[in-house]
């Protein structure tokens, strides 16, 4: 499978996430679209790691080249889990104060 197919798939998923962030007003949906973008990047990292590993295998049979990308994906998942817990707490607090999750209410910093 050519790497370009993977890049185009991940770009499509990422762009869907961008469109979601730009068009939706529900803070939870915006947050979910950010998760979608993170996952698109994760998939692309794994695809690149396997591409690099396949190229390195032609020179050495027992190489572990490309394993760093998969560790990076693991750490991205760790950070995403921490981010979600704090972000959802912020959204719950915002709902308690404004009784809505509409992001257009969050313009108090403007003035």
């Amino acid at each position, binding site marked *: 499978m050519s790497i370009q197919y993977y890049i185009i798939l991940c770009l499509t*998923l990422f762009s869907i996430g961008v469109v979601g962030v730009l068009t939706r007003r529900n803070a939870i949906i915006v947050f*979910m679209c950010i998760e979608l973008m993170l996952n698109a990047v994760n998939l692309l990292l794994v695809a690149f790691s*396997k591409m690099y590993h396949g190229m390195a295998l032609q020179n050495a049979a027992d190489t572990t080249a490309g394993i760093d990308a998969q560790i990076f994906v693991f750490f991205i998942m760790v950070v995403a889990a921490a981010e979600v*817990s704090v972000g959802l707490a912020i959204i719950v607090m915002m709902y308690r104060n404004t009784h809505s999750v509409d992001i257009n209410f969050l313009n108090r910093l403007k003035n």
Partner: protein
Amino acid sequence: MNTVDILFYLLSAFAIVSATMVLISKNPIHSVLWLILVFFAISGHYILLNAQFLAIVNIIVYAGAIMVLFLFVIMLMNIKKDAEPQKQLLVKLTGVIAGGSLLTLLIAVVKQTAQIQNKQVLLKEGTIGLIHPLGKALFSDYVIPFEISSVLFLSAMVGAVIIGKK
């Protein structure tokens, strides 16, 4: 066209359709359920790439933990289906056009870049995605980031409790 190619196209179409449904759904709970399907499709891609550890972690952490957290919060808030005021059509159209232009531009760049022409991805082979090499790398070269991430989790836990208690 062999089985792997067919699986790739099936999973890709599944992921893109589900991701689009996340945007289209009016009900936030339906959005969460569609997003879980996207994560399962991405896990299928990981298995196709022989990254078995990441596939399992993706299902456990994302589809299992994070999405349940989202569901809990949505059900806690009791958001009405039509409570979300719609953005104006112009704003929506602008967002779609902006995202579409980004996608078009990036695909054009990918099509023309010389470095990635004729590069193949190793499917269902290679051992770097298995638990044994990953664990070795994680606990030898990356042991300090691993320990720091536990501190990050602790701070996230404390932060979530403090924000939630107010």
